[in-house]
């Protein structure tokens, strides 16, 4: 129980330190507002914050959902064929190396201002770690296992379904935790560059009006959404790939 409270304590301590530092160094509010002012701003602007956060959550989750589907499919395809892997991988790395900020204007030209550029940016930035992890899981089936299955007449499809995909699941869930946090990066970048709504848009508008506590309020809300989504991913991971973390469960249960 005490152990579970420690992370909360760390967060509280961090805010306290921040508050104290602002007071001690007499920071002007428009440079670094104290957390008390940030929380006040969250409360004061709660209606527009909720409205804009809802939009950001929506575009992020849709983009992330598309990334899961594409990432799983592409990961399984790449992982099950060395030839396809070698053929497609350089292109993937190339795509991933393009800064997503640079893509947003193009997306806006194509799709106009709105939800679509944010969804696509969130998707583009978050599907890469999923593809890499899933393909690694599928591709690294033990050679002895392959021999056992092939000498029984197993087809490539059998091997992928019975061994490749189940064994890639821990990799997949590990990648989801990375992917969901970077998905927020993607949608907020898109909203910051060109948008009419969303936390990124709210922060840009607030910054232009020197409402610095509101900018920090936007950051805080984004962080909270990121942590919440991370916890959702962890919840599904525990339920579906418990076999991969059995050692830790045993310790927690005091076995």
């Amino acid at each position, binding site marked *: 129980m005490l152990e579970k409270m420690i992370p909360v304590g760390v967060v509280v301590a961090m805010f306290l330190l921040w508050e104290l530092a602002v007071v001690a160094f007499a920071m002007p509010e428009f440079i670094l507002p104290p957390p008390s002012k940030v929380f006040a701003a969250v409360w004061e602007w709660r209606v527009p914050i909720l409205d804009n956060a809802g939009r950001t959550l929506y575009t992020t989750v849709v983009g992330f959902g598309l990334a899961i589907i594409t990432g799983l499919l592409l990961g399984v395809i790449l992982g099950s064929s060395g030839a396809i892997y070698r053929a497609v991988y350089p292109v993937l790395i190339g795509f991933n190396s393009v800064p997503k900020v640079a893509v947003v204007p193009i997306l806006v030209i194509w799709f106009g201002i709105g939800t679509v550029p944010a969804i696509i940016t969130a998707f583009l930035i978050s599907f890469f770690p999923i593809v890499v992890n899933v393909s690694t899981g599928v591709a690294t089936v033990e050679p002895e296992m392959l*021999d056992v299955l092939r*000498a*029984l007449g197993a087809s490539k499809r059998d091997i992928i379904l019975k061994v490749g995909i189940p064994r890639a699941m821990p990799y997949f869930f590990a990648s989801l935790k990375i992917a969901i946090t970077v998905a927020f990066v993607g949608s907020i970048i898109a909203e910051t560059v060109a948008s009419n709504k969303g936390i990124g848009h709210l922060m840009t508008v607030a910054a232009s009006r020197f409402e610095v506590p509101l900018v920090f309020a936007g950051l805080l809300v984004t962080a909270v959404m990121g942590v919440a989504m991370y916890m959702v991913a962890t919840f599904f991971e525990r339920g579906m790939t418990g076999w991969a973390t*059995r050692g830790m469960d045993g310790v927690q249960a005091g076995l």
Partner: protein
Amino acid sequence: MATPAPLMAMDAPANAPARPFVELDRVALRYPGSHGALALRDLNLRVGKGEFVAIVGPSGCGKSTLMKVVTGLWPASEGAVIVGGHEVSGPLKFVGMAFQNSVQLPWRTTLANVMLPLEIVEPHRRKLRRERKAYEARARELLATVGLAGSESRYPWQLSGGMQQRASLCRALIHQPNLLMLDEPFGALDAFTKEELWGVLQDLYLATRPTVILVTHDLREALYLADRVLVMSNRPGRIVHERHNPDPRPRDLDETFSADFTRIVAELRHHISQARREVSTDA
């Protein structure tokens, strides 16, 4: 070649079948690549139906490669591989295999791991859904014969190394294959567990009499279990010596400590060290 032994002699078994079940004729295998080394050369091997053969030899002599060639996982570069009267041109579809690494699937229970081949090999694959109860009973029975009754719903990581290897043997045998390929299945086990599993394997063999090819480093294991022990040369591997063990089964483990048995083990050992010293003329 061999000194005559009162207990075991060099001559062919009296009940040798007309056509061997596994037949390798002047097989060579070159590793892939432009100047890939020869792993096997001029390898001749004949294993009768229901015969238990053990293959021993210096490490790196191509024993495991031989397993891949017999099962069709790797095509022979030269020569013919014939199993069950048919030339092998791709992976066989019925072979039970077990390795030193028991490779159980960690998300499956022991029962589900053992039943894996039934989901792949015909005709079981087709019948599994309708006759799951019967197949499950068969798997439980098999697990009980190797001493794993009560462990059916445990996961691989809850089993000891020896228990995992028992489960691995069950998985290799659940579909009642007529060819069983064992690549050092007991290599990673302690001496006591190993000897216990020799008995388990002997019982399993006697129950259905599949054709067995066992690759091992352990000469006592080879001689105790097999009808015939074949010694392979250094790479490129071929068979340079063979030794029959005509003793009736079930064999007693105590026998492996007898003077005669020990003498034959020493003799096999001598042949292997000779094979090790032989510098291969070309590779």
